[in-house]
Every structure is written in C-alpha cells, then in structure tokens.
C-alpha cells in the first residue's frame, strides 16, 4: 500500500533530477531571503549558481543546532510572520530552544510525510490511532496528528501520561494503532498486564515508535507484548518533525521522504561526506519548505543509508535505525561509548528489560564509568556468590561491547528515574566545559 505511489516508487534517476531542481530553488531562496545564509555563503564564497549537481551540495557549509539557536526566535524564517501558521520548538535543555515555523503549505508537506509513514504501517481510514506523543511545542504529537487526518483515520490525541487511562481508552475506543516511545510503550504494556489485561487482546494492528533510541531486542519485546508489528518513525523539529523517515512492512530501514528531505552521511570528526552503507552522522536538507528552509543540518544522529530498492517497491533511500548520537556519545579514556551498547550488553546477560543509568566521573585525572542496573527477576538469585557472578558477567559483557571496564552496581527495582519521553541514560559529572 502506498500513499503517494508515483513519488514513492519513482525511478532513482528521475528522483535525483527532482531533488536537484528543488535543491537549487531552496538554496536560491535561502540566499536571497535569509541574511544568515547570505552571510555564510558569501563568506565561504559559494553561491546558488554553484549548485549544478546534487554532489555540489558538499560545497555548502553545515548548519548546527547552535546556529539555529543563535537565530532565536525567528531569524531563519524566509517569509513574513503573517504567512506563518504554526510555531513549534525543540526542548531547550541548554540555552535557547530552536524554533520552527510553518506556512500552510509546510503543514501540508509535513502531513504528507507522516501520511506516507502511517500508510507504510498499514493504517488507513478505517483505523483509530491513539497518539501518546506529547502535544504542545514538541512536534511529535502534531506531526502524527496531521498525517492521521490526511489518511482519514480517527485520531485520539491523548498525549503522554495517565497510563491506566490510556489502557482504558484503548479498550473502550477500540484503538487499532498506537504511537509511543519504546520505553513508554513497554511501561503501558506492563501496567496493562499488572491489571490483568493482556495487551495482545486489545486488537492493535500497528505501532509507531519515535523520539528515542532503541534496540532490536526492545522492538521484539514491544511486538511480543502487543502482538503486532512496531515501526520506527524518525524526524526532528529543526527540519519539520516526525516523518523524515518511516519504516515500511519490510522493517529493513526507514524510507526517507527523499523528495522532501535530502540526506547525507558524514564523518562527524572530519566532516567529509561518506558513501552509501557507511555509518556516520546524518545531515539533512529541506527540499520543500517555505517557512524556514534548513540546509545541511547536522543531526548528530548516527546511522547509515542504503539506496538499494526495497522489497516493498519503494525507491526512496533507507536509513538504518539510529545507533547513537555523535554528541551524546561518551568519550572515556579516548573510547567512544554509546548508551545503546550498554543496553545491548545487558540484554545479552539475560536482563530482558534493562533499566540502567551511566554515570561518568573523573575523581582524579582518570575517567570512571559506573553503570547502575536495576536488579530484576531475570538476574536475581538467592546467593551472594551468584549475585557477584551476575555483576561480574554484566561487567564482562559491557567490556566486550565497549572495550572499557566499568563498575557495575546493582540497585533495587524502580529506584532509577523513569522517563515518559526521551530517556536520559547518561549523567556526566566530569565538568568538561
């Protein structure tokens, strides 16, 4: 099933021609209308007419989250505020947030991307979609909401939280689709089981995942809990919101809406562009955005891209699930470590739903990592020796994944913080700034 078959299955040659046209128009508009781009490109001595091929995009400087922040709030808008119909912003954990502005046409483009995604997940107008993503300034809620309107399904805009009520509504309204972050989804499933409701019997057809990093094992856990497929949704407020990439039924990577976003993979250290199937940092460019065209945005998300045609028939490139962040990465003793590696290590020793926290300290001149792991039935035995062995096994498993020896501390269940949005897995107490 396709939402926009012509575009989604377009031969790559035609698609690239379309991308080039849109890229040229975007760069010209940005250069003409937004002082930021005008200054940056002039400084770099690169001009709109230098973009003759798609590859020429590499001549353009990158834009980072800091650049976007410095233009707070409306510095990167290409249109007058009278044409902006909606404003969102990304969570500002440090400094000012990043603001995103949308014209009518942008909202429609955004809905188009999520409509394609929901269709990939097998949802259509007869479905009822319960959206547990937060509404508000965060784009997660509205992106799905608009896409849902486009495909004609009924949306339940319930937002995050009130887990027992979520379950009650699912049952009473007969929701057939769910949108949640993996950790919140598992939480919902567990609460349902506690209350004697098997989530498998709720009649859910498809689940859309978003907003946080997860592993294949977590997907399996969610699929088992709810008895249906779970699909990855990727997006970010800076570029528009969710819908940049969504998984199809093949579940072999997320199709990037390539007529709307131009993807590149770079080496985060040297900033050189890498080829297909090579892991690196994802860089994205808006090809179809009036309000606030963003060109060569460094997402800091680590992934790789394949351009091979998918078994579903779509020709659009596929990115693999995000395996880490080039900035959330912890560098310890010169080694890069990602929370996902710790998670994988814990799953390997039989901790089915690991809850953990990574704490990095520098007591003297050397970095130390402590991984706090909540003990669970899977890894609890009635013997001190056995428990020491569990600790040791976790330590070894982490060392195998990361190459670093860490201190493992087992803590009591539910003593580590729970998150209903993006999970915070790392506490860096080194004061490196």
């Amino acid at each position, binding site marked *: 099933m396709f939402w926009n078959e012509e575009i989604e299955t377009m031969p790559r040659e035609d698609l690239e021609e379309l991308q080039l046209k849109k890229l040229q128009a975007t760069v010209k508009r940005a250069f003409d209308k937004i002082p930021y781009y005008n200054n940056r490109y002039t400084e770099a001595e690169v001009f709109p007419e230098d973009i003759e091929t798609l590859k020429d995009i590499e001549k353009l400087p990158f834009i980072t989250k800091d650049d976007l922040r410095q233009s707070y709030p409306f510095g990167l808008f290409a249109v007058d505020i009278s044409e902006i119909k909606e404003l969102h912003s990304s969570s500002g954990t440090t400094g000012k947030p990043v603001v995103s502005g949308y014209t009518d046409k942008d909202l429609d483009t955004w809905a188009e991307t999520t409509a394609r995604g929901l269709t990939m997940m097998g949802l259509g107008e007869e479905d009822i979609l319960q959206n547990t993503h937060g509404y508000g300034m965060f784009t997660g809620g509205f992106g799905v909401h608009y896409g849902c309107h486009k495909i004609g399904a009924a949306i339940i805009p319930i937002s995050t939280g009130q887990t027992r009520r979520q379950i009650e509504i699912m049952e009473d309204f007969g929701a057939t689709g769910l949108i949640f972050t993996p950790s919140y989804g598992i939480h919902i499933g567990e609460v349902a089981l506690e209350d004697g409701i098997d989530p498998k019997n709720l009649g859910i057809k498809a689940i859309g995942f978003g907003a946080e990093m997860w592993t294949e094992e977590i997907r399996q856990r969610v699929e088992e809990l709810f008895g249906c497929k779970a699909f990855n949704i990727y997006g970010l407020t800076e570029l528009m919101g969710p819908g940049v990439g969504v998984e199809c039924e093949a579940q072999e990577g997320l199709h990037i809406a390539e007529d709307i976003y131009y993807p590149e993979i770079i080496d985060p250290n040297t900033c050189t562009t890498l080829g297909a199937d090579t892991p690196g940092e994802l860089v994205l460019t808006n090809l179809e955005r009036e309000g606030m065209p963003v060109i060569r945005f460094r997402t800091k998300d680590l992934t790789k891209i394949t351009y091979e045609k998918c078994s579903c028939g779509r020709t659009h490139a596929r990115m693999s699930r995000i395996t880490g962040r080039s900035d959330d990465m912890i560098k310890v003793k010169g080694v890069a470590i990602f929370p996902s590696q710790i998670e994988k290590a814990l799953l390997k020793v039989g901790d089915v739903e690991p809850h953990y926290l990574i704490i990095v300290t520098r007591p003297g001149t050397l970095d130390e990592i402590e991984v706090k792991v909540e*003990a*669970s*039935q899977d890894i*609890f*035995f*009635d*013997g*001190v020796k056995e*428990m*020491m062995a569990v600790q040791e096994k976790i330590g070894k498993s982490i060392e195998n994944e990361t190459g670093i020896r860490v201190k493992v*501390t*087992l*803590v*009591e*269940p*539910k*003593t580590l913080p729970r998150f209903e949005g993006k999970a915070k897995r790392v506490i860096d107490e080194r004061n490196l700034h």
Partner: protein
Amino acid sequence: MKIKQLSIFLQNRMGSLSKPLEVLSEADVNIRAMCMADTSEFGILRLVVDNPERGKEALEENSFLVKITEIIGVEMNDTPGGLTSILKVIKENEIDLEYLYAFTHEKEGKAILLLHADKLEELIDALKEKDIVIVQADEVYNL
C-alpha cells in the same frame, strides 16, 4: 516439609533493612527468623514468615525484588555441640551447604537450624538417616 523462605534483594544503604520489615508488619505478616547476607554494595535479606505468599505479595507491591526459596529446618539441642553433630552428617555426605542460620523459640532447650543447599532432597535423606528431626513447615510458620 520444606519451608518457603523469602529472599529479598537490598541495596546496602542506611535504612534499607527497615523498609521491608515495615511493609511486612503493615501487611500483618509475622517474622519467625531472619538473616542478612551482604557485600559492601548489596545484600540479600532472608526471612521465614508465617505467611510467605502474602509476604511476597506485599513486598512486590512496594517494588521489592523477592524470590521464594525452599529451605529446611531441623531441631537441634540448644547446647554446645548441638550444631557440630548436624554439620558432621552434612560433611560425611559431602553435601554443599549454601548457608544456614538458627533461631530459638519457646520449646525449651531446643533451637531450630535453617539450612539451604542446592541438593535439598539429598540433605533431607542424609539427615533422616541419622534420625535428626526435620521440622514441618507449618510448625515453623505457626510458632
């Protein structure tokens, strides 16, 4: 015959022992015997209570990590040498004892020794052969 013991995982920090005991007392579960095995970082609290199932439920409702483990209790003379005679039997039969603890009660001059081994059946057989009295579980729960 086997006694259901509650094993509770605890982090070793001040006050970590009092919370589970409070939870049990609130649930009207009485403690017959207890022992704590710990390292500098964590501990395992082992309890014999009058109602293990209710105890487990109450603790789990309060987010404790609990397992029910089977142990046995034997009667021993609360006099010097009472323990060694039992340990001798265990040693002669080459049974690996994981841990033991004891408690006394009203029955004069007698103490109850609680034992745990991986091979619990073998331990029971060996003790029975030497006519050592194995205490019925109900007897311990209802002391």
